[in-house]
């Protein structure tokens, strides 16, 4: 999930361009709540104010749901990611107030946190994979191999498409930023779609909280891939409005995703009927016996 919302003006210095393109989204939710000085200096429209306020509010509500409904224990990485989003907005806002959003500290902090954001998202992915594929704490053997293929294929696909992109930009780091965002969105699309396919194939429950989080990520990643692709096609050239339009759409999708998670995580997941320990042991014994029987069958030799 990317969170940039701004059509960068053409006549800005590299630092300004990067800082504004990067930071405006994170600032505005708070600017909306009373910091009119910033709001005035950025010339914000009513739609933008609403979108930013809605995105910050929905993120905060989701964090509250995760904590109040005690989902944080089973979705610790996801809770951490949502808390990180809230904290990031607060930190960036403080920096903007003290240094301005066109300052170097602001730009450096924004981009550093963006990479931390990506790292946490991959941690969330691993957490979901473990919950979906290892509900008993043991990896399904065939699912594990398929999962390894999925990761490799997603990386190759994302790398190939990112290398093919040639966004019209004025500076090398703009190209790098656009490409790296696109790479992450394609990679996440592949991974989350892969989770859906694998969990459907192995018949794993699809209404658990972990599955709902994965569905939200999948939908966001897929649309993000198209939007980042659009950004890479149009680039950051002078007079380009595509960047801003894409940011609007992205924010609407982000808010929709937050809404989906708030509703899904507020509700209780269908409770599995837990087997008594003795019965659980019987099932594991059964599996071992099946394996032993199959070894015998594989070793047949017809005389």
């Amino acid at each position: 999930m990317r969170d940039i919302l701004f059509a960068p003006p053409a006549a800005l210095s590299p630092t300004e361009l990067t800082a504004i393109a990067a930071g405006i989204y994170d600032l505005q939710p708070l600017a909306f709540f009373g910091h009119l000085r910033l709001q005035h200096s950025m010339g914000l429209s009513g739609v933008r104010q609403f979108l930013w306020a809605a995105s910050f509010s929905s993120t905060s509500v989701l964090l509250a749901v995760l904590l109040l409904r005690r989902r944080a224990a089973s979705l610790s990485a996801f809770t951490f990611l949502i808390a990180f989003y809230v904290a990031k907005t607060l930190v960036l806002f403080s920096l903007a107030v003290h240094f301005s959003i066109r300052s170097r500290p602001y730009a450096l902090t924004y981009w550093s946190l963006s990479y931390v954001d990506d790292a946490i998202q991959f941690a969330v992915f691993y957490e979901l994979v473990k919950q979906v594929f290892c509900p008993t704490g043991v990896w399904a053997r065939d699912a594990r191999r398929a999962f390894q293929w999925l990761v490799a294929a997603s990386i190759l696909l994302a790398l190939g498409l990112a290398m093919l992109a040639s966004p019209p930009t004025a500076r090398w780091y703009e190209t790098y930023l656009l490409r790296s965002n696109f790479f992450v969105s394609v990679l996440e699309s592949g991974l989350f779609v892969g989770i859906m396919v694998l969990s459907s194939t192995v018949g794993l429950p699809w209404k658990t909280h972990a599955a709902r989080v994965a569905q939200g990520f999948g939908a966001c990643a897929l649309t993000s891939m198209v939007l980042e692709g659009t950004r890479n096609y149009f680039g950051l050239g002078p007079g380009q409005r595509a960047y801003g339009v894409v940011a609007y759409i992205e924010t609407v999708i982000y808010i929709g995703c937050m809404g989906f998670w708030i509703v899904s995580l507020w509700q209780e997941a269908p409770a599995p009927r837990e087997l008594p320990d003795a019965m659980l042991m019987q099932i594991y014994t059964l599996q071992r016996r099946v394996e032993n029987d199959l070894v015998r069958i594989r070793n047949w030799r017809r005389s």
Partner: protein
Amino acid sequence: MNLRSLLFVVLVGLVFAGLTAVVVRYALRTRRSSQATWEEILARLAHLDREKIAAIALDAIDDSGRQNFMLEPDAIWSMLGGMEGLELLEKNCQVLIELTTYVQRWHPEALVVAEQLRLNAREIEWHVGRLKGAASTGNLQSAFADYAQRAAATYYLMTRHVLELYEQVSFPELAQLKQAI
């Protein structure tokens, strides 16, 4: 628009369309599967003579682990119903897996059994695939007994283990399942 940009747009469009199609297909499949009743799953089970399957399996290896191999290849062919019978057996494997994942809806621990059944089903697919290959090269007769008997024995074990799983979770329709498989 230069060639590289055009290629980029086309590829991104194709990847997006492909991934979306995959998501829709599997989401529908998951929905159908999660809404299917036990009776609907059971109804998909093709009729196979379980006595004959058991006889073929136990001819190769009985409960005490002894190998007999008394049945002639012609008898195995006739008891299984030739390649058609084997193909039915292959299809039934999928139903057995669904019957296990049905239990998994309430008892996630059944995952380990479902996983094992999936591996068994793949093994049977492999045996049937080898036989189809042999049929296309005219070597079906020599290969049939070996591969078909392995497939039948693996299938037989699958049915036994599905029944045991249902017994362990005290599934109410166990008797009906025993009749069917």
